[in-house]
């Protein structure tokens, strides 16, 4: 195993283990999602959702829950000297980026494992659209993970840490939300799932993931300079 790959595995394992042990972010994200669903039920005065309304509620909630997790992504690194450790190690520093993206991806998928079924129970008439939804979730999470990791790594060293992530991340996430809701809306429509422009939206998501993954990977080295 090359040193980079070993470092990747080590950082990822450390993150996941630490999260499992302390359970700081995940329960909060999940709880936040469920409560937000309840708020939407009353805010929209609806007990069942379909089509664009369902897609909007689901994705808005997931996005804001994701921001909660992204805020905390690098806190351990900052407080316990993880950044210095990476600087000193004789490996490609961008490995911290890929490892963190992977960790964040796992968190988001874990969140959705809880939040999406509950959403379906609360609001959906039938669950037929959930299968293909997994693909949309995966690609959107990847994009959120890449951009979120990039912004979070910069915000952690700043003064208004908690404010900066939502502030900068939200506009960047707009194309993701456009594509995600665009793909989800026909999946959750009243008459059963349809795949109107499904492939196109998935391609947009993939393009976003590619571009921001590459940008993040390319600039991360500069972020770690002292």
């Amino acid at each position, binding site marked *: 195993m090359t040193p980079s790959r070993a470092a990747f595995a080590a950082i990822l394992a450390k993150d996941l283990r630490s999260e499992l042990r302390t359970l700081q972010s995940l329960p909060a994200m999940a709880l936040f999602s469920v409560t937000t669903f309840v708020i939407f039920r009353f805010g929209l005065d609806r007990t069942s959702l379909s089509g664009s309304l369902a897609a909007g509620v689901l994705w808005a909630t997931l996005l804001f829950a994701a921001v909660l997790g992204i805020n905390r992504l690098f806190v351990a690194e900052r407080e316990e000297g993880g950044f210095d450790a990476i600087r000193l190690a004789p490996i490609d520093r961008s490995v911290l980026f890929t490892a963190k993206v992977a960790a964040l991806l796992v968190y988001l998928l874990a969140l959705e494992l809880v939040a999406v079924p509950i959403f379906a129970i609360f609001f959906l008439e039938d669950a037929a659209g959930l299968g293909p939804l997994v693909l949309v979730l995966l690609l959107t999470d990847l994009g959120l993970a890449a951009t979120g990791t990039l912004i979070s790594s910069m915000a952690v060293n700043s003064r208004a840490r908690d404010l*900066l992530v939502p502030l900068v991340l939200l506009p960047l996430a707009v194309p993701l939300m456009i594509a995600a809701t665009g793909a989800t809306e026909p999946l959750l429509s009243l008459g059963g799932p349809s795949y109107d422009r499904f492939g196109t939206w998935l391609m947009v998501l993939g393009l976003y993931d590619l571009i921001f993954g590459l940008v993040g990977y390319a600039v991360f080295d500069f*972020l770690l300079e002292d």
Partner: protein
Amino acid sequence: MYGKGLKPLSIATVAMLTLSLSLVFFYAPLDGDQGFIQKIFYLHVPLAIVALVGFILGGIFAIAHLRTDDRKWDAYSYVSIHISVIFGVAVLITGAIWAKASWGHWWVWDEPTLVSFLIVFLLYATYYPFRYAIEDRDRQARYASVFAVTAGAFVPLNFMAVRMAQSLVHPRTFATAEGGMPGEMMLTFLCSLAAMALLWTTLVKFELTAKSASGQVKRLRRALDAPVAGGGSRIAPEVS
């Protein structure tokens, strides 16, 4: 020396602006469908194009800054983005005026280009609080460059995504006067575009010159062992 060439540049800008304004009101024919309202476009569209190019330039300068570690690129990047944000305000306001005149509403979600521009503007508006939140000067410059690069990559992607979001049921209700434009309109448009590009460049140079002058004064103070004034922006990069 940033001020060098500023005078001929501003003269060229004034000349071009005068020329294009004259063309807009005395030469360009009246649009068949939109009527007189269409004249707003000679203002709104060039401003938008120049602003977007300015944002992308901000990203390119940022790449240069990251590669060379020369602070002057950071100054270029910051000022490019700063002037483009100001142009962006003009774009959004003139866009709203046009929307009100065409549709009776100050904002319409049907125009994908305007909506995309709003999102881009909102992103670059976060550039200032983002810089302000990072205290260490070196780090601030580096992170700002990362932001500028990321945002620059974001611009084309965003335009594509918003355009795609246009429902096929409601087709784009307005054709920006690009293709099929009579020659006189095209000439007027190109002159306006050139005028705005010159204006942007002049303002960028102006801003950089002022910053440079400020930096030279600080340098003088330091050389004389005089107390350096506490003033000076906490977000804008210094130029020396």
